[in-house]
């Protein structure tokens, strides 16, 4: 979640480094450029778009933002001692002011309770996507664990290329494109060299590939504020754009350092602190429903809403019904 501390007051002249050129990083760059800031976008891969690259609802916007904003490709943020730096083929540059737009982390097999063999053919989602974009398939009979916007898009694309696809989901989901969806949890992998069998809690399937597409928000640079999937588990590109807009307002707030309100609670809300310039909060409630901010209740339709907050009571508590 965003920690405003590192960006107490952002002067118009200073450069803000945005780490990651996915939809969140690019849209934040656009918002900040519009507000007169100097922005540098660093992207570790040799392309922009992050995991939204297959998303028909986002690809047009990504292309447009990519043509407007200059992005340093193959430029990787990493920690050098106490500092964050960006490394590229032209050298190493320290980050004084930055925002983490580093995207989701893919859950590892052991944290999902998957045990067994460790054969070839088990890929985190991002690796499978990188292979696909390079014209490679991660396998022949491919199980994708996790049913969400991104995993279903990858599944459809691989199916178009003639691969047999299973989508494994712990909750029942419907697929538009006739994908075979298995409801269950992956428990154990079998295969001495290449994956041969995936054992679920209620089923066993023969597959040579498992793509793990269960995502967690994760900011590898907690001293920097974060935006997009680095801070929110949400699967709607419009929500990412909203979050970028809110963070841009916060970053630009002259009075930020003096009067900040912390946002707390069990419900995902963005950003983590509110400044006097920002009275809106992005609240995530998958499937919709009622949420409370302080002592007021709001009804959310869809998976999220941008809510105008009641005032500057400290701290601001967001909770479910």
């Amino acid at each position: 979640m965003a920690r405003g501390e590192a960006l107490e007051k952002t002067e118009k002249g200073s450069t803000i480094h945005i780490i990651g050129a996915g939809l969140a990083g690019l849209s934040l760059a656009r918002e900040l450029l519009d507000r007169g800031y100097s922005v540098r976008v660093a992207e570790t891969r040799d392309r922009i778009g992050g995991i939204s690259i297959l998303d028909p609802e986002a690809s047009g916007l990504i292309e447009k933002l990519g043509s407007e904003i200059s992005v340093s490709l193959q430029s990787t943020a990493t920690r050098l001692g106490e500092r964050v730096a960006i490394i590229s083929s032209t050298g190493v540059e320290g980050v004084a002011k930055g925002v983490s737009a580093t995207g989701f982390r893919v859950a590892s097999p052991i944290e999902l309770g998957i045990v067994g063999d460790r054969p070839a053919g088990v890929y985190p989602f991002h690796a499978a996507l990188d292979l696909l974009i390079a014209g490679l398939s991660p396998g022949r009979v491919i199980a994708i664990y996790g049913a969400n916007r991104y995993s279903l898009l990858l599944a459809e694309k691989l199916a178009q290329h003639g691969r047999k696809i299973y989508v494994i989901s712990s909750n029942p989901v419907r697929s538009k494109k006739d994908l075979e969806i298995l409801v269950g949890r992956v428990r154990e992998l079998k295969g001495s060299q290449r994956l041969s069998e995936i054992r679920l809690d209620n089923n066993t399937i023969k597959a040579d590939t498992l793509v793990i597409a269960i995502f967690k928000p994760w900011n590898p640079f907690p001293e920097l504020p974060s935006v997009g999937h680095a801070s929110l588990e949400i699967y709607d590109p419009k929500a990412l754009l909203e979050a970028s807009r809110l963070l841009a307002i916060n970053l630009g707030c002259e009075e930020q350092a003096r009067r900040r309100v912390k946002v707390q609670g069990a419900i995902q809300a963005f950003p983590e602190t509110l400044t006097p310039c920002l009275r809106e909060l992005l609240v995530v409630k998958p499937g919709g429903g009622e949420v409370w901010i302080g002592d007021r209740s709001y009804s959310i339709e869809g998976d999220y809403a941008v809510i105008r907050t009641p005032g500057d009571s400290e701290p601001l508590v967001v909770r479910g019904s």
Partner: protein
Amino acid sequence: MEPRRYDVAIIGAGVAGLFIAHELSKFNLSIAVIEKEAEPGFGVSKGHAGVLHVVQPPFNSLKSMLAVKGNRLYDRVARELGVSMLRLPALLVARSGIELAILPLVYVVLKIIYQIRGFDISIVSGRRLRLLEPNVEGYAAIMIQGYGVIDSFELIDRLYRSSRARGVEFMFKTEARDLKIEDDTIVIETTRGSIRARYVINAAGLGSDTLASRVGGSERIEPHLGVMLVFDKPQTRSIVAPIPTLKPARTKGGGIIPMPWGSTIWGPSFAPTGSREDRGVRAEHVIDVIRKFKDLVRIKGRLVKAYAGVRPSTPKGDFSISYSPQTRRIINLVGIESPGLTAAPAIALMVIGMLKTAGLELTVAGKTPQKIVWRISTRARLAINPSGIEGHEGVIICPCMKVSLADIIDAIENGASTLDGIIFRTKLGMGSCQGQHCIGRAIIAMLRLTRKKPEDLVKSGEASWLVERL
């Protein structure tokens, strides 16, 4: 034409075989190393956590004696080969009133065993324990000096490269199936034809007993599995373990082990396995390890990986390093399990002594070979001085472990032919994100750099294909 006859053939390019090759290569000898897997260290050595042990129970065993000797040789080895190594103590921690009560008794017993072999041992009060190890929970501890943690993959890579530079010939994907004794020659029947040598060292790890039995050996390996858990952050500065009690445990020894590159390993567990091919992680072994160590330390970082290593244990529980009953020109190394890595430099010296006794003439090579200048990894350069990082060094493929394209190119140029070969040499994918940012890109880089066909790329074994054309 008579096929070539080597002076010495070593079967197995694990840490034991490589140390023997490395030491023998200093003499005027023709040497071949025959390895079943695609790369050095892909057998038993692959599962090693890199701990340099001190004394090992049973204390008067060959393995304990060789571990003590090997441990002392490591500072020189690490310097000679430029391998990252940490010297650190082990802390045996008392966590309950009962454990605290038996601590003095355990101390007295251990003091006799350790001190006599030159390892300092002392009692650490609760207060000092908290200063030394702020994350460790305990009332007091016994501290034993002299342990170490080494980057075992780097060690294997450098032993391999230094022996190769001194003329040792390596034959990978070549499995020794049988040994035949002729007049003054041993014929090794392999999956790729026969190889002849005057002397043969059988350091074939899990396959060593089968091979030894062809020439009269009677040892039998009963493989055991050890599961290890990897956390992505440092937790302790020392190796930390609970104080030993008489309770039988499914974890054998093991501890909380800080890795030279900043992660932490818990384990290993210890359980028999029926199959020599089995490297499966079982849920109950994961639970055993968690149960053993969870109350010992405040967990830092996330549990990112569980993996299993296999030990070529024998029922006797000791190393067996002996001449074949049929000829002194074959030396069998059977049951080289933990602390095999620690003992390996001493094993090599012992084997060389045995070869000499068996009649092998050892004259020091006349020409000193060109000294290898080991390349400094991008990660190490970034830690020391980031200026001058540019070009391929600046193209970071693995952000967590700071592995650059230059590191991958170097690994491939120096013998990595598989994805695991690259991973072991560079630590690619071994950090917090477990490969999400690097595995796909590394495969793509491998394709470009090796000009192989996509279907020919493998993880480690020949059937472990990675990708195909879309």
